[in-house]
């Protein structure tokens, strides 16, 4: 039996979720790299889709979770939402960064250029910099109350870009293809894609759990009142002792 008051209990659960995600990612990537057929036009280059698309989906999910955490913090004032908000922002930025590295690696042999100013890529770049700015804001504000409130407000405003990123390929004539779904991706490609999507999802959840614990511990330290010198005799100055 595990002790419910053990502070390591939450971390163990997070490592369990991370491990499950890693296993799913390993299985999905193995199927995607070695068993899924070649794509008829792109050949093997398309296989980057098995990490690029899951990164993209989950980055949007992470920012959506950050938005809800920001909203709930402003509504309830509970700092657990601020810790989760910080974690979701950082994980979302990491996934968006990965997506922005994987995308050009695929685009160069397929489109002939690393980057194109099409609506999907432009809105994604805007999303990356908008949320990175909020992380910078969090680093430049020492007061935990102001930091939590201001970054929550900034996240709510910046979130307007997330639906635009998702729908950009439908709203405008985009060089980027439409969202991958059973209608646009044939069955042999779908199994590794979905497995990896769930793998990255569990990795994302595990990382958010771990990162929010770190944020909560830092917050606890920042908000703790300073120790009164008189209650710790070992720390009292020599002259103060009777």
């Amino acid at each position: 039996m595990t002790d419910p008051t053990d502070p390591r209990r939450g971390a163990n659960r997070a490592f369990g979720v991370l491990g499950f995600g890693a296993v799913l990612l390993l299985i999905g990537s193995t199927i995607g790299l070695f068993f899924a057929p070649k794509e008829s036009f792109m050949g093997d280059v398309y296989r980057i889709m098995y990490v690029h698309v899951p990164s993209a989906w989950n980055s949007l999910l992470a920012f959506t979770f950050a938005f809800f955490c920001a909203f709930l913090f402003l509504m309830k004032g509970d700092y657990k939402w601020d810790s989760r908000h910080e974690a979701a922002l950082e994980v979302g930025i990491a996934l968006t960064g990965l997506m922005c590295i994987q995308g050009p690696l695929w685009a160069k042999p397929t489109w002939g250029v690393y980057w194109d100013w099409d609506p999907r890529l432009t809105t994604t770049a805007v999303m990356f910099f908008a949320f990175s700015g909020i992380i910078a804001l969090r680093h430049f504000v020492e007061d935990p109350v102001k930091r939590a409130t201001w970054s929550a407000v900034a996240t709510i405003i910046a979130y307007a870009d997330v639906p635009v990123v998702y729908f950009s390929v439908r709203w405008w004539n985009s060089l980027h293809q439409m969202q991958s779904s059973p209608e646009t991706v044939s069955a042999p490609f779908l199994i590794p894609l979905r497995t990896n999507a769930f793998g990255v999802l569990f990795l994302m959840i595990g990382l958010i759990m771990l990162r929010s614990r770190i944020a909560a511990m830092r917050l606890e330290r920042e908000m703790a009142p300073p120790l009164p010198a008189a209650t710790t005799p070992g720390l009292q100055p020599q002259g103060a002792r009777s």
Partner: protein
Amino acid sequence: MSGLGAALSKELMLQWRSRAQWLAVFAFGAAALLLFSFAVGPNYELLRGNAPGFLWLGLLLSSTLTLSESFQAEMEHRAIEGLLLLPTAPHVLYYGKALANFTQLTLLGVGLVPLMVVLFDAPLPRPFALFGVIALGAAGLSAPGTLYAAMTFQARARQTLLPLLLFPLVVPVLIAAVKATSLLLLGDPMDQARPWALILLCFAALHWSLCGVLFGRVIED
């Protein structure tokens, strides 16, 4: 309404008293336009084609100077706390400040137009429509800019933080304003400037309402 009028008149009076700073911001915008022309070289066709982009980049860069200082009077000696004690809602203070910033940015944009015409040989067939686009773009910049200025003024490295937060957010304003200005200056046979102006209007409407609601949380905590 009288609260908003009082807040706006206070802001405009403050801006009038610090008009030397306004001139410095205008000089900065003018210098930016001059520098952009050096980047392209003395090719009038290229300069004319890029003039709308240069105008909006000049305005955007200058806007950070005006916005970043817009809360100086309120934050010095914690005057904001006195303002919050007034029998008026915080969003009234926000709208007063944002309207004053909007006025300042619109005047700055209109002031940079003659310079753009002279430096880049840009035609000006529909000046009033262009001023309308400048006003819509300034509205899109001033609404989030005022809210972010309230946050960043109290933070470290505010001169870095404000552009870092504001620039990615106002990319839609920049794209729509440059497209609308380009169509107005260089010809618009299909009447495409209107949808771009509509995007500017929607962006401004969204941010003027959202930022007004959230401003109270930013200054009260």
